[in-house]
């Protein structure tokens, strides 16, 4: 193990673990009230270690296995170690761990440590419709305070907005009025549940257009021809919503461009 990595482990065990100890229970409770299946979240996975008290007023440093600790004599709480001192401490800690765990490799020990959150998540019943709401519930998740740091609430916001857009598309899809049909025809009359719209096959050669078309090109063609309405510009919200609904109905179907 590289010394630098150990150093960071030490920092985590000494400061971060203790610092989080109070907030975790509240956070976990809040999670459980909204997620009945109790899918483990990243916050819950931070383990709280009980670091023994110092016997002589120095500082106890614990390895992140939660068991192995040594006392740095003469180091007061909050006092920084010198670089050399820190190196020496890490070596001492690891030597102690090796003595106590003969024949084991450090990496394996770390993985065996707590109950695997990932396997627990895999067994949890997560409905397909909501699968996008939660991040992959694994311990090994990268976190930050600002960027790429999203909570379950964020996922819900995203999903709600997406569903609204799709629902808007569904409404238009089913409404000859919103489609601007002059003859009372709407998309669902030939495509119930957007069946036979095959969005996964685009781009494809479309014989009515005699060229390669995108899904939106074909939507527009249908609006102009069988529906007898006016074509929508490519950035029209209605066209975008229709496209959203059609794509959403084919969730899970593999892309297969050019298929006939």
């Amino acid at each position, binding site marked *: 193990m590289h010394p630098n990595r150990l150093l960071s482990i030490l920092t985590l065990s000494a400061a971060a673990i203790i610092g989080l100890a109070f907030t975790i229970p509240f956070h976990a409770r809040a999670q459980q009230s909204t997620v009945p299946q109790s899918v483990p979240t990243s916050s819950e996975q931070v383990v709280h270690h009980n670091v023994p008290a110092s016997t002589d007023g120095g500082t106890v440093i614990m390895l992140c296995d939660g068991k192995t600790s040594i006392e740095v004599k003469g180091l007061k709480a909050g006092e920084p170690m010198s670089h050399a001192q820190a190196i020496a401490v890490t070596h001492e800690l690891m030597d102690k761990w090796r003595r106590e765990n003969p024949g084991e490799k450090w990496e394996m020990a770390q993985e065996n440590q707590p109950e695997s959150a990932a396997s627990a998540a895999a067994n949890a019943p997560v409905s397909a419709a909501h699968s996008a709401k939660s991040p992959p519930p694994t311990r090994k998740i990268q976190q930050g305070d600002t960027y790429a740091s999203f909570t379950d609430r964020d996922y819900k916001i995203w999903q709600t907005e997406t569903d609204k857009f799709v629902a808007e598309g569904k409404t238009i899809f089913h*409404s000859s009025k919103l*489609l601007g049909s002059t003859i009372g025809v709407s998309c669902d009359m030939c495509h119930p549940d957007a069946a036979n719209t095959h969005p996964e096959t685009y781009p494809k050669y479309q014989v009515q257009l005699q060229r390669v078309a995108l899904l939106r090109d074909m939507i527009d063609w249908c609006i102009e021809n069988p529906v007898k309405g006016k074509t929508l510009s490519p950035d029209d919200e209605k066209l975008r919503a229709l496209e959203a609904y059609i794509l959403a109905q084919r969730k899970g179907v593999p892309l297969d461009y050019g298929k006939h």
Partner: protein
Amino acid sequence: MARSKLILWGVVTLAIFAFSSRALAQANQPLAQPKSTNQVGFPTDLYHWVIPPDNPLTPAKVSLGKELFFDSRLSADDKESCSTCHDPQKGFTDQLPTSMGIHAQFGQRNAPSVLNAMFNTLQFWDGRAPTLEAQIQGPITNPIEMGMASMDAEVAKLRAIPEYAADFQKAFGGQITFHDIERAIASYERTQVAFDSPFDRFLAGDQKAISDQAKRGWALYNGQGRCMSCHGVNPTQPLFTDFKFHNIGVSAHKSDFVPLARKALALLSQKGGLQEIDRLAIQTDMSGLGRFLVTKQPHDIGGFRTMGLRNLLVTEPYFHDGSQATLWDVIDHYNKGGVQNPYLDGGIVPLGLSESQEDDLVAFLATLTSPEYTKQAQKEYQEQFKRSRTDRPQRDEAAAMGLSGRNGPGFSGPFGDIGPGEAAMRENPADLGGRPVDSLK
């Protein structure tokens, strides 16, 4: 040009009698020479797919084919050659409503152009011949076209002409056979490719190659005009056709389809084959049945092949019976939704094109002219334009705009119309019953 058509039609016989060396003169014209494939817009891929492996192009075959194409000795009275009806000076047509053959007899069909005919999936207006080769026996043996008694008679006649023996020997390494006559003429026809038009240059990226009006026409061609779905075009297949058969109602007002179809069926069940179909198509009123003569399927009644649109200003008049003189008439026909009949193609509906939109479409069609026909086409365009300002026999404003029942002047919406009714223009039918979707979940 259009105005002089009647006169031309009437006196063309005399012209042929008067100039016996006409065919030879035709053959020497620049327009009759094999064309280069080095043209903007030339469909190289397609070209290689459609040359039959059993009849590759060779200079000897092309040269022989050209001789035969312009040789009136292929006909029974030594007066009609292929070029009589497929004159290079007229875009390889005769610019007549229907063609005139032996003894000044007129058939029922308009002569299609040889230009780009090599790309057709089937030949003739009704697709009764599968290839250029197979097509050739039709006119040669038809009694009112070139009038030869049989294919054997044609072979015997050519074997008596000394210069052909050597040419056939050189091209095919043997005696004259009808099969080789077909292969030689078809080879020459495969050198008649016409692209290189302003529109080809436009598609290749030259924005200035066509006018703004033509560009508007191109948009209509793809959109409101619904032209593209049948007269399909793209760089791989730039022929402006789907090579399929549609009943657009052209023969509906001249033919009573039901009795005709029964009559044709009775005849074809006694004697089938290409020759009988050819006879019915060229010499009888059953001609208007079109594709039905070949397939005997009711939905093919009155169906004719979608024609390519290149150089169409020099191949007028239009449709399988040459019944329309100008491109405005043609567009008027489509604009009102064709002529109603029980077998009308379900894709033919009123288009609602305004006068200026029709002008735009014609301006676009005029850009499909290959360089060798530019001058002729310009002249024809001017004449058609002038005529279209005063003479519009096919125009039916109300039907086109869906303001009345189709083809029913002054009458609002009879059954059988598939365009929107009068009220659809005032009231949105959707107002009658919007579907509750989310509100009721």
